[in-house]
């Protein structure tokens, strides 16, 4: 059996997110949330919408957890 040659350039992946020192926290937070794994698209969408509100103190941690759960339940209905 011949080992398969690796070819990392064959399927280019999205560049990994890094904190940009020239950008504000809010901008970097937005970039981080956008970089969250696509396989959890429903949860990532909730995070992109609700985490900035959590950081601003507009919702609680419990509120965020409930929003995650409600989103998954809505998806399965």
């Amino acid at each position: 059996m011949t080992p398969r040659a690796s070819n990392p350039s064959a399927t280019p992946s999205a560049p990994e997110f890094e904190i940009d020192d020239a950008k504000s926290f809010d901008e970097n937070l937005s970039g981080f949330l956008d970089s969250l794994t696509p396989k959890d698209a429903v949860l990532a969408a909730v995070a992109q919408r609700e985490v900035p509100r959590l950081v601003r103190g507009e919702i609680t941690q419990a509120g965020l957890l409930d929003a995650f759960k409600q989103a998954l339940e809505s998806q399965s209905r």
Partner: protein
Amino acid sequence: MSGWLLQRVEIEGMRGINNASEPLVIRFKDNCITSISAPNGVGKSSIFDALSFAIRGKIPKLDDLPASERGKEYYVNRFHPDSQGKVVLTLVPYAGGAAVKISVSCDSSGARTVSGPANADTILREIDREFVLLDNATFQSFVGFKDLDRGRAFSGLLGLRQYSEFRQTLQGLARTQPFNNHFNTAVLENRLRTATTALSNAQSGAQTAFEALTKRRLSEFPVPGDAVAAAYGALAQVELLKSHCDGKAFGEIDFQACLTAIAGAEQGAERAELSQIIGTQARLEAALVADALTDADKDSLKALATSRDTALREIGSEMLHQHLQSAHALLSSDEWHDKNLCPTCNTQNEQSVLDHVTGSLAKYDNAHRLAEEIEECWHTRGFENVVGLEGEAQDTGEPKPLYDIARQLGNASLSVAQVDQMWTARTAYRAKIEAKRVSLKSRRDELEKKLPASLVAINSAVEAAKLLKEKWAAVEQARGQIATINAEKGNIDQIKRFLDAASTKFQTLESNATDRRVAAVQPICRGLFASIVATDVEPSLVKQRGAEALSLALSNFFGLNNLSAQALLSESFRNALAVSVYLAAAQLYGGAARFVVLDDVTSSFDAGHQFMMMEIIKSSFARPGNPGGPQVVILSHDTLLEKLFNKNSGGTDWNHIRLEGTARTEILPHTMDSTQVRDKTKALLNAGQVQDGAFRLRFYLEQRLLEIIGKLKIPVPVDFAMDDNRKQIQHCLDAINAAVDVNKAANRLVLSATQQQGLRTHIATITGNYLSHYATGQSQAFSGPALLAVVNAIDDYALCFQHEDPPGSGTIVWYRSLTQA
């Protein structure tokens, strides 16, 4: 570049600054260092506190007092007539533009109200950076902190405080215990166990009933179509039941109607009794089969109950538990620095109170864990079936203690005594059921002998079919419940995995950013430290990747390497190191705060190191020496430093302000026009406030005498600035007298004979009415009229050093010196 510079601050009614209706106003030049000096107790640190309240909403030195001291009630000046404090900040954009004025009020309880432009709160939050307000305590605590606390403070310095807080938030969200508590996963697990047990019992009952009805084994669930057909066929083939089965599915058959038909066919109450006996026998059989407990099961449950009973004896009430949890939260927070200080009784302990509380809470956790294990054991080993046994053994009206025990399981768990009670009762219930079965069998045999055999078999088949229908329904219900619970668990697990991944990812990102910024700060910090201490010592900031802790080390200590900074550095060098870290961070990661206020930050330095630090601030840190640097405000009580401030103040890049006054009345800047000071002094004296007027008079006398010394360039002794402030006026007069005498002896004195005579007259008034009492502290000897005479005397004394120029013009100017007009 964005950010804000400080243009002006007005303070009234805060800390040691009363200034009722006439706020202390300090103006700052945006391209200039501002130094503010004052004797001890004259409002210098009150300016720092007022800025802290305005920007941060808190004054740490008061907030850290024991609760009984009510520190917040001391935010407001105790003499202010309205018990209201107010700080007005005027900020100008660093890049230019219109100034904004933000007013921050403080009521007598320390509550803060911000008013101004719509974004006032946002601006205050933006400028609330760790290095905006620095005092000696900040530096000392930074070096004295444990590595973890220092690391957290350092994150803020690197502009990463929000990142650190967000990382902690993510970690908190993903932390298993609170996560599980939020979603009640323990309840969910219990529901799942109960539904699983119900499914198992229903399947077992269905199998028994199916076998009785069809004489076949049933081993598949969900029930296959041929099994349903077999059950249906077993009834439908009976002639008597045919009409009840035709055109109906198995589940639609009315079994009660079937039984009524059988009873009708035989027309006897005994048939009904037989039918009831058969049904009861089936239930008793199912209850006995379901209870498959062994002594080993009981021993396991009892062992857990024994451990829990022991654990309960080591803990107190739930109220104490809540108290310990509150204490733990407080002790663990950044706000509670001294972990050996008890927050409840304020006792200073030799051991860590946090460790003690953590240990106590661990005992509660242990008891809680054992209760959960008992509950799990109860469900997984099938102890619930004992409750079913009780339901069959005890007749209506008889006590059902095991039902009560099972119901309280989630709240109070089980004691050893209850386990024993349960096991004894189980044995008795089984015996009682066996006795019932014997009795029922005997009666059934008796009835079956009397009744036709064919109908007995049909009756048994209908009863079995009825039970089968119930059990199949129970199977489906339990399966539905399990599916729902598993779906919910799946969602919760998915959220947990998502949060775990997000938390881990963000932790890596923050670590990367921290590494970059530490690498950038390190050389600047070393450069600043080397410039201040000027010795062969090089500090290192050591931060482990992925960890919050920050260690301070010495990469070089006079040729020795990698040693502890905390262990080796003197207090002044430790301060120098902390100063270097903060200033380096401020230089690189200032953000929106483009100004730094330093309060007595050189107090541990000797004169040489003080000078070095001021030179570094002036030449390479602050504007305008460093055009991209922050605007710096220096507060100091140090009279040696004040000499340096006075010297620097001659240029355009340094503005020095001296404060005078009392907490009871007013704090005033020395730059205030002398006419204003005189008028305020007279106003106090005319109002009968002699004590306050006397204090203000000293301020006025010093101001005027120093003005004379400055204008006429009169030499003063080298220790002039270090004099006790009670003797400052006398020393000013001595210096002026000595200079006058020397020049008069040399026949070079420019003062007229009348002016020379005036000097002696006015000095006599100043000395007799004021100085001889004030210097000895006998201020009770003052009177209003006498002090008003002193005000006039010092003005007339100053006029002796001035002349009309040109003669006859009416324009009065200072002599250029004692020898030059």
